[in-house]
């Protein structure tokens, strides 16, 4: 008797809440275990050009996600689709379970930091930051508090009255950041936010952005063409090419286990030897290459299905020595040795890069850390060396 009354009471409360929420433009998520942002088969064309091609991606709350790709790969278009400046031709964009694909930008709980900052030149720093808060109908006192909070967050104290053109590039970048953060968006979109800064400032700002993101627990999606930037900041990276995501992985996996040859070449430097699988023993492949003889390669999961492959090895995993190291046939660290002549030496401070010309004429790049100040191991151009690397350090990629 009492139980049923309680139950009916509970039901009516839930129904009331649901109807009140339905009136709001963006009701609370219905399904709780969904990712914060789900992109489902989104496509966008401009004329005959497919900028984004049926792309799907999940982004969890609190993630720092980077979209990486060469210019024209569709990463900025994807970001603009998320911001609402473009409407997708097909597919859904679910934010907290609600399809926002057709919601106008000014009605989305998403903010964007523009590549050129797009500050309002006629408004002061304070009014730039307060712009979004005023539109949200926030009380004047609250706006004042929030603006002060944002100014402190990006360390712009004392510059509140300045106009954008009275600020340096770095300061403008901070205003843009503060302005886009002020509304506390569920997702912050950053379009090449550091592209206009010089190298030193870019590095310190990267660290600050990461710190900020962790502290605010906000979801950041950054678009960049700079792989180092993406690797430094993001927890996960989505590599885009021709409107598609070709790999979504942590920076480490992207670098050490690229899914395709294109990614291997796009992210970082890599030596590639084309060849054919001639032997397979346990998880060890023997690949006969035209340029470097037969190489021993440890196979990753999933196994290669094709016979024509490329063996890839990152330059920093190629070591140089005057004599070949002792071979240890039985061990897992089976060693590949390539004899050649050093043709190019580039001293870069922390590392030195070498190009070694093999007898086949192919070049092998190697980079070695300069761990000793008075480096007795430095190699000179013209010197005969052995470039060697283990089977485990190699990747085998389908061509």
């Amino acid at each position: 008797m009492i139980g049923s009354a309680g139950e009916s009471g509970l039901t009516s409360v839930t129904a009331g809440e649901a109807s009140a929420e339905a009136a709001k433009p963006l009701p609370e998520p219905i399904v709780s275990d969904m990712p914060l942002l789900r992109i489902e088969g989104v496509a966008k064309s401009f004329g005959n050009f497919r900028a984004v091609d049926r792309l799907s991606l999940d982004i969890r709350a609190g993630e720092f996600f980077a979209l990486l790709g060469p210019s024209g790969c569709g990463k900025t278009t994807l970001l603009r689709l998320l911001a609402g400046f473009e409407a997708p031709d097909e597919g859904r964009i679910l934010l907290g379970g609600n399809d926002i694909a057709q919601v106008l930008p000014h009605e989305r709980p998403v903010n964007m930091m523009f590549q050129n900052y797009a500050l309002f030149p006629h408004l002061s720093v304070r009014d730039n930051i307060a712009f979004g808060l005023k539109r949200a109908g926030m009380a004047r006192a609250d706006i004042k508090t929030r603006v002060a909070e944002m100014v402190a967050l990006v360390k712009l104290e004392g510059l509140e009255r300045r106009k954008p053109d009275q600020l340096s590039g770095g300061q403008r970048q901070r205003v843009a950041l503060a302005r886009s953060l002020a509304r506390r968006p569920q997702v912050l979109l950053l379009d090449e936010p550091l592209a206009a800064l010089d190298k030193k400032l870019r590095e310190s700002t990267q660290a600050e952005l990461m710190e900020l993101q962790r502290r605010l627990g906000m979801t950041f999606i950054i678009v960049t063409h700079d792989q180092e930037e993406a690797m430094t900041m993001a927890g996960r990276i989505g590599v885009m090419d021709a409107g598609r995501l070709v790999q979504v992985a942590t920076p480490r996996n992207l670098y050490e286990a690229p899914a395709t040859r294109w990614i291997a070449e796009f992210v970082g430097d890599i030596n590639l030897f084309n060849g054919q699988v001639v032997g397979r023993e346990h998880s060890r492949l023997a690949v006969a290459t035209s340029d470097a003889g037969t190489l021993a390669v440890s196979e990753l999961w999933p196994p290669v299905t094709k016979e024509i492959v490329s063996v890839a090895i990152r330059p920093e995993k190629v070591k140089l020595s005057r004599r070949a190291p002792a071979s240890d046939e039985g061990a897992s660290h089976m060693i590949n040795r390539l004899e050649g002549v050093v043709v190019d030496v580039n001293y870069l401070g922390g590392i030195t890069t070498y190009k070694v010309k093999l007898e086949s004429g192919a070049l092998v790049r190697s980079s070695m850390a300069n761990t000793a100040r008075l480096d007795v191991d430095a190699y000179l151009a013209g010197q005969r060396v052995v470039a060697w690397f283990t089977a485990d350090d190699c990747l085998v990629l389908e061509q």
Partner: protein
Amino acid sequence: MSARRIFARPARLAAVAPYLWMVLFFLVPFGFVLKISLSQTAIAQPPYTPVFDVTEGRQALTAALAQLSFDNFKLLVSDDLYILSYLRSLTVAVTSTLILLLIGYPIAYGMARLPQRWQGIAMMLVIVPFWTSFLIRIYAWINILQHDGLLNQILLTLHIVSAPVVWLSTDSAMYLGIVYSYLPFMILPLYATLSRMDASVLEAASDLGASPRQAFWLVTFPLSLPGVAAGALLCFIPIVGEFVIPDLLAGSNSLMIGQTLWLEFFTNKDWPVASAAAVALLLLLVPPLVLYDRLQRRQLEGGR
């Protein structure tokens, strides 16, 4: 060092050229007008005294100088014909400029939002009427507006009016003529400002929750103010001194200062008073010019 000097010389000449132009074609003629405005009218050739003659020596020059007086300016202030003319000129110029702004802004805004390849065509459409002589276009309006003109014929045929309406020689006709003639001067600077505007700033506004209407009033319009100022000034100043359009299209019961000037100069042959009126008009136009200059300087400083 010497190389720099060689390059500096033409550069310095180029910097001097506009000043030279100003002195030759503005300051010197203005000096003549100012001098005439301080003279007295006379039945002579030229129709005023004194006349400076440098060949008669220093004594004569000093005597002539002593004859100059501000009587003509006193007349301008005491006779309400002139004051009313100035007031009418200002009223007409302010009203016309406002109408021009109301019509020109939406047109310029629309042009700036056209696809790139259409913008050039739209620009041509604005400019092409200028290839016909200004006077011919005004006479064409007389043709359209007169008693048995095109406008009345259309209105009668459509049974909107039962008898011909008097259009010509009214203020409406004058405003029509002014707005028609000056519209490109309003549209072009506005279009220049609006088309240069960074689209991402508007996207930022909408990203931050501004509806399209709010984005217009809070971002687009404030950022287009330099264009508004340029367009308004480009129209306002010549309209204040406008003579032809009011003379041909407006009634004769109230005169603009340009018409009064014409009357004094050609009908009354009173060059000194006409000159005084011209000098006073110039002084009247200085404040808006100074204001515009200050606005533009602020813009330039802002741009740095």
